């Protein structure tokens, strides 16, 4: 095989990988349900200067006694768990159940896949769940454009595909999309 052909194979393979990553991502965005997930009350001034802000959602800690938690659904150790989300009157989505498989119990709900990290026994039956959407893009130096304090409802618009994979899109403050720009 000539060196030119070898190089062509390498370049085609690498471009295929790169385009596959982009295509998978776009497919997820185009075919996904859009849900609005409320953040835990926190002082957003603590956001780092880096490009990602680590956030915690209300569904990041789930009380097993307040939602329908399947016996077989994982509660720790990175076990997969499918959390069933239902839209509320205020437009925000809340957890109503947790399953060990991709199963809807109510029409119109969305299942988001997470990994159970463990129980907070001192807080009753609260289970910490990691969804992989905890890092939200924040342009460097723009975190100050987000309001602070507890007087605002801060949420993140998240796309969830039919397999439960989720992608954070942008912040929503008091129902309004926030387009952050570099300062």
């Amino acid at each position: 095989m000539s060196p030119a052909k070898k190089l062509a194979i390498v370049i085609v393979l690498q471009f295929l990988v790169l385009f596959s990553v982009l295509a998978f991502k776009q497919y997820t965005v185009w075919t996904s349900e859009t849900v609005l997930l409320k953040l835990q009350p926190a002082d957003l001034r603590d956001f780092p200067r880096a490009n990602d802000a680590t956030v915690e959602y209300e569904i990041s800690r789930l009380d097993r006694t307040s939602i329908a938690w399947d016996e077989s659904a994982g509660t720790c150790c990175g076990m997969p768990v499918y959390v069933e989300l239902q839209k509320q009157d205020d437009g925000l989505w809340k957890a109503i159940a947790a399953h060990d498989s991709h199963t809807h119990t109510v029409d119109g709900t969305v299942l988001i896949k997470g990994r159970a990290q463990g129980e907070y026994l001192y807080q009753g039956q609260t289970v910490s769940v990691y969804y992989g959407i905890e890092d939200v893009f924040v342009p460097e130096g723009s975190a100050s454009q987000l309001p602070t304090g507890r007087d605002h409802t801060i949420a993140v618009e998240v796309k969830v595909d039919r397999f439960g994979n989720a992608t954070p899109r942008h912040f929503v403050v008091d129902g309004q999309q926030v387009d952050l720009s570099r300062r």
Partner: protein
Amino acid sequence: MDDEEYRERLAHDVATWTRGGLISAEQEGAILARAGAGAPRAVGILRLGWFVTAVSIIGALVLAGGVVLLFASQWDTIPTWLRTGSIFAGMLAAYGAGYALIYRFDMQRVGSALLLLGVLLYEAALFLLAEIYNMPGTPVDSPLLLLLAAVGALPLAYLFESRIVLLLGILNTTGWVVAELAMRYPDSPKSESVMIAVGAFGVALYAVGQLHALRPSIAPFSAVYRFAGLLVLLALVYAFTFDEIWRQVIDSGVKAYSTPAVVYATIGLAAALVAVQTLVRARDTEMSIDIGAQAVLLAVAAVVATWPGWSGYSLVFNAIYFAIAAALVTSGYLHGDERFINLGLAVVGLGLITRYIDVFWSMLAGSAFFIIGGVLLLGVAFAIERMRSGLIRGMSVPRGDGGATRGATP
């Protein structure tokens, strides 16, 4: 290894031997003349090749870092299409220039460095595109991106026989294994014991290196795999020499037989590679010891994975750590390879210093700790230097079997 590369390496090695007093300047000249390295001026030019290689690789690394920093600093001001297009164009330019330099202008070293730059830009592209299209936290998450980086790097390494790109690919794969395990089992009682899979992965890399040595076309990659495997293995064994880790495992209440299947799958994969060696490698004493050591390491990994809650493991891993160091020194001595001797002695030194700090930090007053430590270090350095000199002198004496000294002519 082609003739030119061999002569360059020989020129580099004999210069080291001359500086170390092992051979005279006349003997150096005679060796090089015998190997066809030519006049002293030509030898100097040959040695310059190593310098060009080093500068080229550093240049590729610095340039790739600069590109990433440029994108990071101008994040919002560059339109998305331009960012994406620039990344792809940069890759194509690096590969095109590398190809032209190697095959049109016969500049192998700088051309190879540009191929390395192309791979680095590809890997940067994976992460930059994830940022540009806001992908963090998706199934296309960073551990998987590391695996995809390896998928793009390894074919280039094999097709263009690039050891530095192979090392990069192995680094990506190892990073993926570690990150995947850390992500799947974060802050759980299983976290520490699950990492035993990394040790098995190190053994697997080493075994792959031994199998590469059997085929001349890929034999140059053997040392890269073995070196990478040893480093991965040593890093894990070193971490497991601390008894604090095992106390945490016991305190966390992790139970026997609770290790995830992925750990046993990794050990099984490594065991299969060890078994293949028994079938295809030439049977001699060294091969038996080598394969036996790999099998013992995997057996220890399986025991630790199954029954992780025992405080005595730190002693076991200390023994393994120093046994690997001794094996490195012995292997370097038997094969006349100074690099393995130096690596083994460095491993011994690190182990001794670590244990000294580990044991005496809380037992001695600050001044006594440093005074005694300094004296001990000087003593250890004296002993190691003396041993190293003896070993290298021993390597320079022709042995009866006649096959061990590198560069020996029939």
